[in-house]
């Protein structure tokens, strides 16, 4: 009797897990299926077709937005990684109070609502006399990316052995050389996953870009938003499908990269 009850409970639990999974993934799957639909309609299947993908690759505005998105993601992730890693090393060597203050600042953009971050940056750019455009999107993305890098690198830094760095210095290494040969290899997995995370976040952002982009420039997210508000175009489904697949791949790499040790903290 007890075994039967356990069995039923196990099945019920699996059922619940599957239901949630369907809830989470069915809408995305639908979107992907629709991107291959030969018909423009959303409730009729017009046969398998790649025409929306072809239309997408032919569209100059989509290709321009794609280029903007990739350049911004790459540059903002690179700059954020450099600034963030340097900051992590500094924060790690600080005393308790300044450390708490620095981590508090780091947490502001992560806890704040995106709409407030977006608006505040927009107001600042205009107050500083920087006209909205490519530059401002880039600055905004670097700003919200830095915290992700810091939060990736800090746990790795805490695990490194301070004496190894000091030993290298004692043996005559310059600080830069000791950092390059001793500290950097230890924190490299954190730096890499911080970079990839920053890249993904930049790729995915909509709200902050929406407020800081100005007229005449689009990233993929803002392009989709304006197209969808004008009426859905199936080529947007094709574009969404590609973004989903790319982001999914990036996330799997960041989470299951072989060099990343599973840490419990």
């Amino acid at each position, binding site marked *: 009797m007890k075994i039967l009850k356990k069995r039923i409970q196990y099945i019920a639990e699996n059922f619940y897990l599957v239901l949630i999974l369907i809830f989470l993934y069915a809408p995305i799957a639908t979107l992907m299926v629709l991107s291959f639909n030969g018909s423009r309609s959303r409730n009729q299947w017009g046969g398998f077709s790649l025409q929306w993908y072809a239309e997408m690759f032919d569209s100059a505005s989509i290709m321009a937005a794609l280029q903007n998105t990739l350049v911004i993601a790459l540059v903002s992730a690179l700059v954020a990684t450099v600034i963030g890693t*340097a900051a992590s090393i500094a924060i790690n060597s600080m005393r308790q109070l300044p450390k708490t203050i620095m981590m508090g600042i780091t947490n502001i953009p992560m806890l704040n609502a995106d*709409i407030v971050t977006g608006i505040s940056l927009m107001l600042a750019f205009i107050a500083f006399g920087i006209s909205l455009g490519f530059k401002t999107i880039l600055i905004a993305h670097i700003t919200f990316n830095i915290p992700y890098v810091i939060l990736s690198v800090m746990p790795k830094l805490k695990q490194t052995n301070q004496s190894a760095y000091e030993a290298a210095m004692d043996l005559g290494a310059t600080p830069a050389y000791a950092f390059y040969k001793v500290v950097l290899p230890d924190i490299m997995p954190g730096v890499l996953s911080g970079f990839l995370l920053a890249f993904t976040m930049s790729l995915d952002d909509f709200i902050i870009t929406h407020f800081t982009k100005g007229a005449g420039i689009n990233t993929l997210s803002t392009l989709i938003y304006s197209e969808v508000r004008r009426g859905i175009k199936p080529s947007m489904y094709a574009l969404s499908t590609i973004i989903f697949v790319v982001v999914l791949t990036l996330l799997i790499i960041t989470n299951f990269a072989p060099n990343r040790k599973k840490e419990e903290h």
Partner: protein
Amino acid sequence: MRRKLLAGPYLIWMIGFIIIPLVLIAVYGLTDKNGAVTLANVIAISTPEHAKALWLSLELSFVSTVICLLLAYPLAMILRKRNIGRGSFIVFIFILPMWMNFLLRTLAWQSLLEKNGVINGILTFLHLPPQSLINTAGAIVLGMVYNFLPFMVLPIYNVLCKIDDNIINAARDLGASFWQTLLFIWIPLSVPGIISGITMVFVPALTTFVISNLLGGSKILLIGNVIEQEFTRGSNWHLGSGLSLVLMVFILISMALIAKYDKNGEGTTF
């Protein structure tokens, strides 16, 4: 220490692009077009139109948060019981949608719920009457729950994983029923995760303008829509900033709650 100098670029960047911009919102929100100090932009929240939008936002995000909590807690308990370990693929697939573009996820629901959308297509195919699903408060709640559910699952799961099995077993050995263990052991020990999850869902739900725009149509205005329109269309930035200040009060309350109940950052999503 030379190493501390490495924080220089970071500090300059964060002061320039995080602190000063936030101060600017306060400056804009508390002045009028001529630069005179005024509270009018903040008090504007009490006009019927704005108060209605704020109240509706509070209502919908509250309902969404409760639904997320009710869905996420059992899910987190099951995942923990399976003992698959953090970082496993099974846990990962429940968290994954969190990192995916929410604009696209909302777009997916739009194509499902629309008048000529997928769900109505299936209903027609089954010879059932089509339903009007989109442009309702229900559609917005659905969009919110869908978008923010993983933000509730992860912190609760992280906290549940830290609960010692022996405590649960001791309670059961001493004769506690399932519900008693849930009420007196599980829930009190998972408060940091629950609080963190609640704020992770409530703040973005309260401030959204995308979900309400795509799923609620133009008739349902949330406070996020009102602010967004002030900045992108109405261009009364002073009013928009004043309303944002009101919104920031709610964000600050959430931050304070996290600081109080989640001191060690156990429930952080990252």
